[in-house]
């Protein structure tokens, strides 16, 4: 029998980026909030110690800060004809663990999806006709750019994002991204200083007539005090960013931007080492009444609450809905059901260049340090004569020169022995790269459900991912590889290699922790799991917040849009829902 705890106004599952944002906003509105976090408490001074954070083996290779597959794994297959097997170690993507979640070890690349993303089906149909997107399950998100722009602004100012605006209220700004959707004001901090490789990239892109701009970065260019009064430090380009926590208070995370204020509030409580097993519904299944969780000793508790906010990682949000029977499982055969629908990823390619006469110091880097062109992003370029929709940002970022995993050599070089040593010495300092991060569009056969065979440590089914790169996205990525070939020309490198995406998503090599969809937002309860406020269509006191709500993934890092959606959902709860509980959008 579970021990029943005193009822709260709201219970939040997971205290990462979205959970911290919701907790902060809901407690500000006077709600009594408890957050349940499966992993441990972690904070900068104690756990992200500047004296030993620069440990590639421990953090990047042995993945000390990441979710352990022994705690929660997932199964994968490329199509429904295969038998899914567990990813026994996470490889292609790396979910986070503990307080701060994946926001602890992200890179800090802080993008805004475009106005044309939020209304993608309408936009593409109007521009090219419905036949252009046949076979893709693209749909509008329900929220419009004008509605959500202020939420992006709110998130960037919390993070102290460093960048250069390209479009302020419709006025194109020199030096910024001319393709971005109009913003109400500039970033809170100026761009980071740039390393040699990114500077060279920007010069060459300008020569080619493209529009390079500093990648918007939540690695801070200067000391900053955010709107909550929390002080952050200037990034030192240490080169231990992604896969690491920042020991320098220079990378935005829940720890560096929200928790110092949130944790002191009397109307907030955090329970760590507390794993939520499911959301409990009323007998008619129309309302959530509580959540069941286990503490570290395996004791079971029930936490009743008026509002349940599911704020785990995108994939875990979907699993929580399925385990709790909130909404209906998506069926790729009939196309019916909504939970698990429109799972998307990221579609990337890259170019590597090697020189005789250049010295790049690749170890002087940061997670979001670089220059980008958006000339081939989204629908910023004309697709009428192309055989795909979607696009990619092309960036030259310099994140690290950590030598266990980052030792580029000329392809075909030996991987061991004396010749390997010489090739490694030749390649390490003299190499730069840039890459396309491409959109991932939904198709009927890519989806999420519960695995029929494999279970977690509590005996609950694992999440099953059925995914391969859709043909549209493969064509898009190959087009980007052709562009990369052209972009490498003016560098006159001694050696150039451009990668081409292969069909058959491989779960082993690291690619991207940008898993999206599965509990998508939208205008229609038959094709979306949550409404435009991230409120479950089926159980209106449940809000499901995160990249799980993305109806598709753009060619950009998702966290900026995740943060904006969290502020947007929090605003809906505090200004609409608590005044009049119930469905905020009629079904």
């Amino acid at each position, binding site marked *: 029998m579970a021990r029943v705890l005193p009822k709260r106004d709201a219970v939040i599952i997971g205290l990462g980026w979205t959970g911290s944002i919701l907790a902060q906003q809901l407690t500000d509105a006077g709600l009594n909030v408890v957050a349940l976090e499966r992993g441990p*408490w972690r*904070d900068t001074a104690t*756990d992200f110690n500047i*004296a*030993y954070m*620069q*440990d*590639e*083996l421990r953090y990047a*290779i042995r*993945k000390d800060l990441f979710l*352990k*597959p*022994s705690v929660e*794994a997932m199964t*994968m*297959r*490329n199509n429904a004809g295969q038998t899914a*097997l567990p*990813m*026994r*170690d996470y490889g292609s993507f790396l979910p986070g663990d503990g307080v701060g979640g994946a926001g602890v070890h992200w890179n800090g690349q802080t993008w805004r999806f475009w106005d044309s993303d939020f209304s993608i089906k309408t936009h593409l149909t109007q521009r090219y006709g419905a036949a252009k997107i046949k076979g893709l399950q693209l749909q509008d998100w329900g929220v419009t750019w004008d509605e959500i722009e202020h939420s992006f602004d709110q998130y960037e100012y919390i993070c102290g994002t460093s960048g250069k605006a390209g479009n302020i209220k419709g006025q194109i700004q020199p030096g910024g991204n001319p393709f971005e959707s109009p913003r109400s004001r500039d970033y809170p901090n100026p761009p980071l*200083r*740039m390393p*040699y490789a990114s*500077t060279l990239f920007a010069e060459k892109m300008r020569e080619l007539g493209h529009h390079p701009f500093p990648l918007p970065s939540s690695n801070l260019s200067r000391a900053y005090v955010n709107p909550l009064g929390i002080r952050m430090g200037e990034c*030192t*380009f*240490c*080169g231990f960013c992604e896969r690491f926590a920042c020991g320098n208070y220079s990378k935005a995370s829940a720890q560096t931007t929200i*928790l110092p204020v949130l*944790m*002191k509030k*009397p109307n907030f*409580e*955090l*329970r760590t*080492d*507390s794993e939520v097993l499911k959301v409990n519904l009323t007998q008619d299944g129309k309302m959530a009444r509580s959540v069941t969780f286990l*503490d570290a*000793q395996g004791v079971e508790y029930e936490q009743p609450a008026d509002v349940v906010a599911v704020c785990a990682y995108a994939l875990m949000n979907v699993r929580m809905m399925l385990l709790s029977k909130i909404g209906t499982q998506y069926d790729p055969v009939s196309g019916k059901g909504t939970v698990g629908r429109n799972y998307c990823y990221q579609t990337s390619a890259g170019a590597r260049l090697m020189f005789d*006469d250049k*010295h790049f*110091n690749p*170890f002087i880097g940061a997670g979001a340090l670089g220059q980008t062109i958006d000339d081939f992003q989204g629908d910023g370029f004309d697709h009428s004569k192309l055989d795909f929709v979607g696009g990619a940002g092309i960036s030259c970022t310099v994140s690290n020169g*950590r*030598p*266990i995993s980052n030792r580029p050599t000329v392809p075909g070089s030996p991987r*061991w*022995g*004396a010749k390997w*040593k*010489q090739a*490694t*010495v030749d390649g*390490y*300092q003299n190499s730069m790269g840039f890459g396309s991060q491409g959109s991932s569009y939904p198709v009927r056969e890519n989806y999420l459900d519960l695995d029929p065979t*494999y279970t977690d440590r509590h005996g609950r089914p694992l999440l099953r991912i059925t995914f391969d790169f859709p043909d549209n996205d493969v064509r898009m990525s190959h087009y980007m590889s052709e562009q990369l070939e052209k972009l490498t020309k003016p560098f006159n490198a001694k050696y150039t290699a451009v990668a081409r995406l292969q069909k058959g998503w491989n*779960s*082993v090599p690291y690619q991207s922790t940008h898993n999206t969809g599965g509990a998508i937002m939208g205008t229609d309860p038959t094709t979306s799991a949550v409404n435009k406020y991230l409120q479950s269509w089926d159980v209106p006191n449940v809000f499901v917040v995160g990249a799980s709500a993305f109806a598709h993934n753009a060619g950009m890092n998702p966290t900026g849009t995740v943060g904006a959606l969290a502020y947007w959902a929090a605003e809906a709860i505090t200004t609409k829902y608590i005044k009049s509980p119930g469905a905020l959008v009629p079904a």
Partner: protein
Amino acid sequence: MDNSLRGVTRRHLLASAAALPILAATADGRTISGNLPWSPFAGAPPRPVNPLGWYFFTPVEAATVEAIVERLIPADQLSPSGKECGCAIFIDRQLAGAFGQASRLYTKGPFRQGLPTQGYQGDLAPAGRYRLGLQALNEYTNTTYKKDFRALSAEQQDEVLAGMDGSKIKLNLKPGFSTKEFFELVLQNTMEGFFADPLYGGNKNMAGWKMIGFPGARYDYRDHIDKRNVPYPRGPVSIYGMEG
């Protein structure tokens, strides 16, 4: 109790830590409310390995691994060898710990032959893979050359390693664990030993870092970020403060 720590000695703080209301570790897990929790020495600094003796390998296994890492990273003007740099010690300590037991991985069955896109699906943790792989390697060289691997000439050792790398040699392993997978495991761990912080037993005197010009655990490059095409002037430092 006043949450302010002013005037409170460290001993006082430690003695009273159990009574801190902000950090009550109770039977129902760790509940935190009303303050930003902080406790002294809460972090987990890495512990340098003891470089003496073998923790996991038998003497024969140790000699075999030393011979392998000597060929994967041979001594030349660029650096000392993998053996001299402690790569075998590094691998031994890794196998004796959490990595060797795969304690953070998903190890529940059923175990089935997977597709290449599904990754390793065998039931052996790295420690078991080394134990089986090293034994099978010596069986192979005894059959083919009538000698243990460590007794072969450098050229013969390279021939065997290249055969494993190129899937031309098939050791007697087990389903779900191929010779190529064994080679990849050893190569990856050897490179880890050569390039990881020296506290883990390899990369002795930061030889791997010096070979390529990686400055190690430095944390602040603001004085060099703007410099174009200028080599970084300082040598490496390790986490425990070794300078080179």
